[in-house]
C-alpha cells in the first residue's frame, strides 16, 4: 500500500472517529428532547398534526405510525412520478414514468433503498427530484433514525409500555439533524463544483465542434441529503461517479464522511441512551472491525488489476480502473464502495459491476450481512441489535444464566421475532434471487456470461432486500418483472425487519432490568466484540456462502486460471 493511499484511509477514519462521538452525543440530546432551538417550528408541526408531543406510543402504534406515514409518502411519490409531465420545473421535458418504474422508484425511496432503476438526468424532472426524491431522502432517513431510537428506548426502559412518539421523533430527526447538516454539506458541495440551479440543460458546442448537452439541476441539495441519509439515489444516472455529482477529491471526502458520520454516531447515541457508553463503543468497534477487514480485502483485490489484461501491453500499476474515475483512483473508489455497502447507501463513485470478483464479493457480503457495519441511518443500528440479540442468546447461556442483554432477559418471544426478522434476508436474496436465476423473463436482465452473471442477479436482490440501492449496474433492472420483484424485496427487507425489531423493543421495554453483577453476560469489551463479529460472519456467512461460491468465488478462481466468459 502506497503511503498516500494509507494516509487517505487514515484521514477518513480519523474524521469519522472525531465526528462520531460528537454527533452521537448530540443526537442523544435531540431525542431526549434536550435540543430546542427550533421549538416554535416543532410546536407548529405538532399542532398541525394534532399530536400531543408528550403522548407516547406502544410499539404497535409506533409501527402503525411508521407504516401509515411511509404509505402516504409512497402514494405521493408514486403519483408525482406518474404525472411529472404535468408538473412544473421540467425544462428537459421528461415524460411520465411507466407504472412499474414509478412503483419501483417510489418504493425504493420510501424504503431508504434508493435503487436506481431510473436514470436521473434522463428520466426525472427537477420537480420530481426535489418534491419527490429529496423529500423521501429526508423522511426515509428520519424514519430509520426514529425507529432505531424507539428500539433503543425499548432496551433502555424498565417496565415501560411505550417507545416514544413517531411524529415527534421524525420531526426532530429532520429539523435538528438532517436539515442543518444537509445545508452545510450542500454548500460545501457547490463550492467544490456541484451544480445547484433550475436552469435548462445547457447546449454546448465542443472544441471539436460536436454538440454536447450538459444536464443541470438542483443537484447539491439532493446529494447532500442522499449521503447524510444513507439513501444514495443519484441525481445523475451514474451517481457520485458523475463529475457534476462528485467533482473533486475534496467533494468525495465530504460525501464519504457524510455517509458514515450519522450511522457511526448513532452507535454511540445508543450507548448514551442506554446509559452505558461502553455498550455503544462495543457496537461501534464490532462495526469497525468488519469495516476494516472488508476494506483490506477489497483494496488488495482492486490493486491487483485485471490478470486477464496481462497479455496486453497495458500498465496496470494504477490497479483495476475499468469503471473507476481518475480523480479517485483505486483507493478512494474502494473506500467509498466499502463504506456505502456497509452503510446501506446506494451511491457509487465507481462501477461495482466492474470490480474484481473478490472486491465485488466483499461489497455483496457487506449488504448480505444486513448492512450492519455502521449501516443505514438507524437501520444499521437496529440491524446490528438483532445480531446482538442473537449473539447474546447463543453464547449468553455459556455464562450459566438464561440469556440477558443489558439486564433484560432474552426469551422465546424475542427469539421468535429475531428469527422472523432474520428470515427476510434469505427469503429476499435467495428466494427471489433463485426465481430470477431461472425465469426467462428475469434472465434477460443479465449482462455478463459465466459466474459474474450470477453475481449480478445476487447483487440486485441483495441490494434491494438490504435496502442498499447500489447495483451491479450491468443488470438491466428496468423491466416490469424486475421493477416489481425488486420493489417487493425492498418492502420485505425494510418492514419485516422494522416490525420485528419494534416488536422486540416493545417486549423488552416491558421487562425488568436485572442489575449487572459479576455473573452477568458482559456485552462490552473485546471479548464481546469478537463474539459479535464471529456471530455475524458465521450466521450471515453460512447463509450466503454456497451461492457466493457459485458467483464471485468461482469467478475469482476462473480469473486466476485465465478463463474469460
Amino acid at each position: 500500500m502506497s503511503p498516500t493511499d494509507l494516509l487517505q484511509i487514515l484521514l477518513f477514519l480519523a474524521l469519522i472517529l472525531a465526528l462520531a462521538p460528537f454527533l452521537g452525543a448530540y443526537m442523544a440530546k435531540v431525542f431526549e428532547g434536550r435540543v430546542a432551538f427550533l421549538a416554535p417550528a416543532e410546536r407548529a408541526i405538532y399542532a398541525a398534526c394534532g399530536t400531543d408531543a408528550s403522548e407516547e406510543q406502544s410499539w404497535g402504534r409506533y409501527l402503525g405510525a411508521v407504516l401509515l406515514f411511509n404509505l402516504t409518502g409512497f402514494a405521493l411519490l408514486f403519483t408525482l412520478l406518474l404525472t411529472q409531465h404535468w408538473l412544473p420545473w421540467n425544462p428537459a421535458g421528461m415524460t411520465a414514468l411507466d407504472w412499474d418504474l414509478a412503483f419501483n422508484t417510489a418504493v425504493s425511496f420510501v424504503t431508504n433503498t434508493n435503487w436506481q432503476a431510473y436514470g436521473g438526468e434522463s428520466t426525472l424532472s427537477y420537480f420530481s427530484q426535489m418534491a419527490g426524491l429529496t423529500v423521501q431522502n429526508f423522511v426515509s432517513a428520519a424514519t430509520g433514525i426514529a425507529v432505531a431510537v424507539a428500539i433503543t428506548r425499548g432496551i433502555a426502559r424498565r417496565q415501560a409500555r411505550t417507545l416514544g412518539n413517531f411524529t415527534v421523533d421524525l420531526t426532530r430527526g429532520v429539523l435538528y439533524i438532517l436539515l442543518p447538516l444537509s445545508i452545510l454539506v450542500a454548500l460545501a458541495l457547490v463550492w467544490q463544483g456541484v451544480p445547484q440551479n433550475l436552469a435548462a440543460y445547457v447546449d454546448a458546442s465542443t472544441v471539436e465542434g460536436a454538440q454536447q448537452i450538459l444536464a443541470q439541476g438542483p443537484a447539491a441539495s439532493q446529494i447532500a441529503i442522499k449521503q447524510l441519509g444513507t439513501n444514495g439515489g443519484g441525481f445523475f444516472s451514474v451517481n457520485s461517479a458523475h463529475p457534476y455529482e462528485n467533482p473533486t477529491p475534496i467533494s468525495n471526502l465530504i460525501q464519504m464522511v457524510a455517509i458514515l458520520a450519522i450511522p457511526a454516531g448513532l452507535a454511540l447515541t445508543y450507548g448514551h441512551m442506554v446509559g452505558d457508553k461502553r455498550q455503544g463503543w462495543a457496537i461501534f468497534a464490532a462495526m469497525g472491525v468488519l469495516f476494516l477487514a472488508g476494506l483490506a480485502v477489497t483494496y488488495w483485490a482492486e490493486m491487483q488489476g485485471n490478470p486477464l489484461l496481462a497479455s496486453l501491453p497495458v500498465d496496470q500499476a494504477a490497479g483495476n480502473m475499468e469503471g473507476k474515475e481518475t480523480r479517485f483512483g483505486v483507493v478512494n473508489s474502494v473506500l467509498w464502495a466499502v463504506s456505502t455497502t456497509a452503510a446501506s447507501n446506494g451511491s457509487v463513485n465507481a462501477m461495482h459491476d466492474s470490480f474484481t470478483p473478490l472486491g465485488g464479493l466483499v461489497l455483496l457480503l457487506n449488504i448480505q450481512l444486513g448492512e450492519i457495519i455502521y449501516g443505514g441511518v438507524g437501520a444499521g443500528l437496529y440491524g446490528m441489535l438483532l445480531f446482538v440479540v442473537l449473539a447474546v442468546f447463543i453464547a449468553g447461556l455459556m455464562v450459566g444464566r438464561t440469556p440477558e442483554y443489558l439486564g433484560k432477559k432474552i426469551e422465546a418471544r424475542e427469539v421468535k421475532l429475531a428469527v422472523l426478522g432474520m428470515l427476510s434476508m434469505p427469503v429476499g436474496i435467495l428466494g427471489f434471487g433463485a426465481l430470477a436465476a431461472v425465469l426467462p423473463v428475469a434472465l434477460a436482465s443479465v449482462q455478463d456470461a459465466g459466474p459474474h452473471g450470477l453475481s449480478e442477479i445476487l447483487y440486485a436482490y441483495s441490494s434491494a432486500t438490504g435496502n442498499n440501492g447500489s447495483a451491479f449496474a450491468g443488470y438491466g433492472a428496468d423491466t416490469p418483472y424486475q421493477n416489481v420483484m425488486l420493489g417487493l424485496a425492498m418492502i420485505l427487507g425494510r418492514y419485516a425487519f422494522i416490525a420485528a425489531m419494534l416488536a422486540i423493543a416493545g417486549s423488552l421495554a416491558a421487562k425488568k432490568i436485572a442489575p449487572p453483577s459479576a455473573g452477568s453476560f458482559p456485552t462490552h469489551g473485546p471479548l464481546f466484540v469478537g463474539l459479535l463479529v464471529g456471530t455475524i460472519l458465521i450466521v450471515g456467512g453460512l447463509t450466503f456462502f454456497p451461492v457466493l461460491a457459485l458467483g464471485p468465488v468461482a469467478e475469482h478462481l476462473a480469473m486466476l486460471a485465465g478463463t474469460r466468459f
Partner: protein
Amino acid sequence: MSNLIRPALVLTFVMTLLTGLAYPLAMTGLAQAVFPAQAAGSLIDREGTVIGSSLIAQGFSEPGYFHPRPSLAGEGYDAALSGASNLGVTSGALIEAVGARVAAAGIEGAVPVDLVTASGSGLDPHVSPAAARAQIPRVAQARGLPEQTVRALVQSRTEQRILGFIGEPRVNVLLLNLALDQTKP
C-alpha cells in the same frame, strides 16, 4: 388507527414543503449568490458560446488534441446520459474492447490502464499524468510543436494531490487542450 392518519398526511405535506421545496429553493438561491460559477455547472464560455464544462469530459479524436478516457455515456461523452460499461473483469467483451483500444491508441510501450478502460461516469474529465505523457509524441507531431513545449504544458496542467495525499494526480483533458490551442492553434 384514525388518530395515526392525520399525522401521516400532515407530516407528509409539511415535509414536502420544508425539504422538497423550501430547502432546495433556498439552497439554489444561496448557492447562486455565494458560488455562482459552480452553481451554474462550471461552464466554459468562449466568445459567448458555451463550449462545455470544466468538470465534464468531451470527446477529442483529432491527433492534435489529448484524448480523454474511453466513454460509454450514450454514444460517447453524452452529458445527459452518463453511463459505464459495467463489464466484469472476466468478461470477454471487456478484454476485446481493451485490446481494440490498445491497438487504436498507437502508443509505444505499455499503455496506462486509464487510457484503455472506460470510466465510471463516461464523463471523467481527467486522465492520469502517465496517460497524458504517453500522448505527448502524437500531439507534438500533429501540431508541429517540440515535445518539450507540450511536456511543459502537461506538467503545468497536472493537478497534484491535495495536501500531498488526497485524491490522485491528474490532468484535465479539456483544459489542457484549451491551453494547447492557446499556445498554438
